[in-house]
């Protein structure tokens, strides 16, 4: 029996933050889960993929985050308790489905878990701060600090959603998602089979057409007012170390842990306001906290959202308060105990010397690389033989093959977001005669490459697209995708059928081990005046080794 499914009330189990969130969903009685893998949120899907059958939970790796969101919306509309999970960039993809979902509200309680990645440990695109979506979507947002809170806040989020019929956002960050600690287990209500939903027609609730849509907006704002009161009544945000000090700290998420660590280190005890509900912002407790203070430090990662909110509240109560935050802490990159100790020492007027190695230590340039024997070596090697690299633009996309951008390959001239290798290729080819080859994996092609491919056909440009079909979503931990479903009963989708269906005439499926054929095809297709696709098909070593 997996520990995460243990039904031993009160037992302490060491869980990863993401798994603690899964446990919280199970203890809340989650009935439907959809996700698209992306680090640091991937384990949510990986764990449900392992346990969903045993736990009688509907689970799917959806094709992208937008359809994961829509699948979750549908399950909620049909009455099921639903969890939708993704990484930060995923919410960009899903945003169009998120906003109207907040308007219609939920039928089955729904939580949306999103994990940010300050310092971009595993994020190529940007250092995103999902809290911006809390404003954009008016979605209640909770920020846990550690694994235990991941579980507890997941349950709280389901409670809020159940009570106010609105989806709730649970925002994690890498150091919360990938933090382990002992988590006290609650109970899971076991069920004998999957729960069947029932969509009950209710046009007023589920159809967002004007003029009704504006009424819905009013309803969302009203719900958030009530939720704010609920937070206050249930003491969701809390003040610690209340004492006579005139200096205080406001913090949230993992930064709270660094604050407590720093005060231990400096041997001081300042009052701390821990913001757990970022949205709706708990103004009343903030007012109460600020009133007796002369100076505060806001400790938060990335953009100063809390700081701005607090400055606004301070203005409202017209208090003569010095508010420091990003003057002492970076906006780029994650925080750590040392940075926070330094900032608190400064505001408190205590001396602290940041530990530093005061002699030269060589920097190691050990970067991740393709696994030995990875079929991608053959693809990139073949391309290098087929063309003059200086005369060709190479479009990158999101997947293991991003590693082609570094030594020894250097085959990546632009990199942006999922599927964009093709979309951007089209733009370049529309306005330039330069030769261009894009690299995109099977998972990423399914995710967002298809509309871009249709656009190249429809709007007439001629890049050479190489689909690196390794039969799996490899980078995020080998999740199945539509070309090879994990469930033997599921219907698979052939990439070549899609390519043909889009009207592409130059199509070849090649195992890159046949180097001669591969090289000849690249040479031929790159001269074509039509869009060309090579499906370079050879399974990831992990797929091969599994068999």
């Amino acid at each position, binding site marked *: 029996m997996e520990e995460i499914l243990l039904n031993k009330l009160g037992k302490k189990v*060491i869980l990863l933050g993401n798994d603690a969130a899964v446990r919280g969903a199970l203890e809340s009685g989650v009935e439907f889960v959809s996700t698209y893998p992306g*680090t640091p949120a991937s384990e949510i899907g990986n764990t449900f993929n392992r346990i969903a059958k045993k736990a009688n939970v509907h689970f799917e790796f959806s094709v992208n985050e937008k359809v994961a969101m829509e699948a979750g919306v549908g399950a909620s509309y049909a009455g099921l308790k639903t969890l939708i999970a993704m990484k930060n960039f995923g919410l960009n993809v899903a945003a169009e489905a998120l906003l109207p979902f907040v308007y219609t509200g939920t039928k089955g309680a729904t939580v949306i878990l999103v994990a940010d990645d300050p310092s971009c440990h595993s994020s190529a695109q940007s250092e995103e701060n999902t809290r911006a979506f809390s404003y954009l979507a008016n979605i209640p947002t909770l920020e846990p600090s550690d694994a235990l809170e991941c579980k507890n806040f997941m349950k709280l989020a389901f409670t809020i959603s159940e009570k106010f019929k609105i989806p709730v956002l649970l925002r994690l960050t890498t150091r919360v998602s990938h*933090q382990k600690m*002992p988590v006290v287990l609650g109970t899971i209500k076991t069920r004998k089979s999957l729960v069947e939903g029932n969509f009950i027609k209710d046009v007023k609730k589920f159809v967002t057409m004007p003029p009704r849509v504006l009424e819905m907006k009013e309803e969302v704002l009203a719900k958030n007012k009530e939720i704010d009161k609920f937070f206050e009544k249930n003491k969701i945000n809390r003040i610690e170390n209340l004492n006579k000090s005139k200096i205080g700290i406001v913090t949230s998420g993992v930064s709270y842990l660094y604050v407590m660590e720093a005060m231990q280190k400096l041997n001081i005890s300042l009052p701390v306001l821990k913001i757990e509900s970022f949205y709706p912002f708990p103004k009343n407790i903030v007012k109460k906290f600020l009133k007796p203070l002369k100076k505060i430090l806001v400790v938060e990662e990335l953009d100063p959202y809390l700081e701005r909110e607090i400055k606004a509240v301070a203005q409202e109560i017209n208090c003569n308060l010095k508010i420091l935050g990003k003057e002492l802490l970076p906006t780029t990159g994650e925080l750590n105990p*040392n940075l926070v100790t330094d900032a608190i020492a400064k505001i408190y007027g205590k001396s602290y010397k940041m530990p530093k190695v005061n*002699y030269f230590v060589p920097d*190691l340039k*050990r970067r*991740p690389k393709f696994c030995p024997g990875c079929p991608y070596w053959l693809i990139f090697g073949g391309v290098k033989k087929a063309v003059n690299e200086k005369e060709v633009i190479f479009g990158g996309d999101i997947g293991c093959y991003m590693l082609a951008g570094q030594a020894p390959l250097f085959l990546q001239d632009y990199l942006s977001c999922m599927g964009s290798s093709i979309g951007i290729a089209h733009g370049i080819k529309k306005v330039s005669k330069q030769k261009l080859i894009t690299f995109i994996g099977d998972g990423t092609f399914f995710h967002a490459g298809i509309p871009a491919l249709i656009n190249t056909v429809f709007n007439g440009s001629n890049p050479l697209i190489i689909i690196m079909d390794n039969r799996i979503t490899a980078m995020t931990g080998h999740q199945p995708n539509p070309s090879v479903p994990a469930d033997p009963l599921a219907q698979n989708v052939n990439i070549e059928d899609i390519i043909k269906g889009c009207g592409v005439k130059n199509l070849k499926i090649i195992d890159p081990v046949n180097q001669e054929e591969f090289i000849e095809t690249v040479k031929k297709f790159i001269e074509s005046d039509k869009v060309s696709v090579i499906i370079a098909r050879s399974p990831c070593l992990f797929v091969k080794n599994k068999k």
Partner: protein
Amino acid sequence: MNKKIEQFNIVIVGTGGQGLITLLQVIAEAALAGGYDVKTSELHGLSQRGGSVEVHIRFGKKIYSPMVPLGEADLVIALELQESLRAIKFINPKSNFLISDQIIPIPSQKTLETKEIISLVAKTSKNVKLLPAFSLCKEKFGTGVMAGIYLISFAAFKGILPLSTQLILEAVKKVIPSKYLDLNIKTFDLAKDYEEK
């Protein structure tokens, strides 16, 4: 070793595929069974593809941050010689620093001399030990992948990891999949028998 310690900080460095997350789980389980609060930090994703990996484990009466602050590691375990250098920022003169004798070359970078690496670490820590963890395991079992288990067992036997050897052994039994368990228990015993010259 019955006395409860206030706080103990461990940093493990190595490269993707050396099993750092398994070691983290073993130590965390042992610390929990020993009655401690525990927090750990790890990274997933592309870092698995042979890149540098660094994990943190902290246990004690009450642990806040999952990350070990700079200069505050009580114990560093390096599963690869060159990777030791990355952990220097976490140590102080009292830190114990155990290094396995494996070298994994970095493409496009000259491999550093063992002597040079040890002397750089020894500039800060007075307790550096280069152990034949990789070569011994490889010689006895045909694979060096248990080097990490060897080092944490060694640390427990020598008392530089304040968790009893019994706790470590129980945690190994809990965490390691059954088909590899026998080899790992043998590795544990091998560490017990190591005599320092």
